[in-house]
């Protein structure tokens, strides 16, 4: 395997602004390195030569117009694309904490436990609030009642939902409001203690107040987790991310600190997108 530092010059004509190349010796918990990734749905290539290092314990936002491949890339990170028959990575690699997640020996179940995901459409299970949060633990074989109780409370507290639901843990998760449902899904993802949390437009179906709560939550969670968030909402990327990657037509156009991207982008396309001239 080649580390980013030793990597040969990228042949793609687009100049990628890597913030800080990470030497191989400093493998950090929750660090993701994507290298020259090509991805195809059947014959249709969705990602072209994406190389990107996502720093640990920070929020990285993927932005770009619809169809630019940002969600596809996100779903590569926990191999959710395995569910789609014709979808394949055709070149390149993704390493999490230095380990190629697509290598033959990798246990995808274990990977997904370490890389949690929150979906665009909140998808609580038709179970009680408690059972929703406990689901991942029970799947993992945790049977001890006290352990589960503790983890459920802790996760609900981390997702800022505890105070709102502590008296009705055993009613259906479907009874919650949209924003609460999404925070329940976040709690559910946190309960299995992942290192990385992927969020696919987590606020797209929420009203502004619920969105503000989830964004506040994201800012708190980065203390402990590496967070990658796909968003259509430029302001949201600006408000809660540390780094921003801008994608266009399946290519990574620019990756830099969020402040830099929003104030002084290096690429014209980035600037045009951010100022709302297209997308």
């Amino acid at each position, binding site marked *: 395997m080649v580390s980013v530092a030793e990597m040969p010059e990228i042949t793609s004509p687009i100049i990628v602004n890597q913030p800080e190349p990470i030497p191989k010796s400093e493998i950090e918990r929750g660090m993701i390195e994507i290298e020259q990734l090509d991805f195809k749905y059947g014959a249709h290539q969705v990602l072209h030569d994406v190389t990107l290092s996502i720093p640990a314990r920070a929020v990285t936002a993927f932005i770009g117009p619809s169809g630019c491949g940002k969600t596809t890339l996100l779903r590569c990170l926990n191999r*959710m694309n395995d*569910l789609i028959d014709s979808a394949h990575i055709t070149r390149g690699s993704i390493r999490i904490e230095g380990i190629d997640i697509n290598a033959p020996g990798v246990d995808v*179940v274990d990977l*997904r*436990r370490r890389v949690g995901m929150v979906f665009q459409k909140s*998808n609580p299970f*038709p179970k009680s609030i408690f059972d929703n949060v406990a*689901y991942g633990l029970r799947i993992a074989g945790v049977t001890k009642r006290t352990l589960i109780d503790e983890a459920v409370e802790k996760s609900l507290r981390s997702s800022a939902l505890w105070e709102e639901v502590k008296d009705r843990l055993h009613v259906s998760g*479907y009874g919650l409001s949209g924003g609460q449902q999404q925070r329940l899904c976040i709690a559910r*993802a946190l309960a299995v203690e992942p290192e990385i949390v992927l969020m696919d437009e987590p606020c797209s179906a929420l009203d502004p107040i619920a969105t503000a709560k989830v964004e506040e939550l994201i800012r708190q969670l980065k203390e402990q987790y590496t967070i990658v968030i796909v968003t259509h909402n430029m302001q949201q990327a600006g408000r809660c991310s540390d780094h921003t990657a801008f994608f266009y037509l399946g290519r990574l156009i620019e990756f830099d600190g969020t402040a830099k991207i929003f104030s002084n982008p290096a690429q014209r396309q980035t600037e045009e997108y951010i100022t709302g001239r297209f997308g």
Partner: protein
Amino acid sequence: MIAIASNSRRVRRIEGVIFWLLRLATYFILACATYIFLDIGIKGSRTVFTSTPPFINLPFLTEPPQTLYVFAYEGKKMTLSDRQFRQWKVEHAGTEVEASSIAYSAGGIWPCIVGTALLVIGSMALALGIGISSAIYLSEYSRNGRLIRLVRIAILNLAGVPSIVFGLFGFGLFVIFFGWNVSLIAGWFTLGLMVLPAIITASEESLRAVPQGLREGSLALGASKWQTIRKNVLPYAMPGILTSSILGIARVAGETAPIMFTAAYAMKDEMPWQVAHWTDFFFQGVMALPYHIYVVSSKIPQNEYTERVQYGSAFVFLFLVMLIALTSIVLRERSRSRLSW
């Protein structure tokens, strides 16, 4: 202008004709159904209900069929069942009577009800086991290749096979080739195969109705595929699978052709549980309601005394099928209100 006006008149006339055609077709169905239900309901209730408490003809529901003896004695017409007739002869020893006997027209239909229940339970257990398994495979595991398309076509075709063909197939394979003879187990397999396509299709639909988000949510938490299906897909599909299967029950209970060569006896004195060894239970023929109706209405000479059992059996049978259908509707409404996304 004139052309348009005449055209619109024609359009209106066609509209009126079509309206009445459609309406007549609908009322025709209604009339037929009403006639059948009223006929069976009125004539059948003469057998099933009584004018004195307990108002239900319990012997008809709890006794095996018996031969009816009709004879004249001291100017009175006597109609006695087999058992009653023998007792009467003991009481009137020495009296010679010229009695005509009519098969199956006295007593009740208890063994038929039991036999039908056994056939339904066994064949549905079999069909649900195989059907749900293959539906899970088709909807959750298989990739949409040429082979799977072939499998689907085969399932569709299986659904179109006439039930008499299933009966003959079961006779050839289970009764003769496997040597199971006319038996419960041969009937289970034949009936099970017959409803399998309906169960697979219904189960697959119920599984597909479970939102993809629930699968992804579960997988993203580190659940394996089977864990996801068992904990987060199947439980939500189950009410739908079961309610559509209840309609399968009505079909299994109602078909005569598949069991007439494989499982049904016209008459059997022992009840199914009266077997020498427990394994014999599976290899015995049973009486069944639809087959009994067929036998009493076409295999014995018809006269004024046979109607009682014919209509009584049909009435009980219709009632049971309606009960099953009603259960399915209630269950469906319940599960619908509980699981919604």
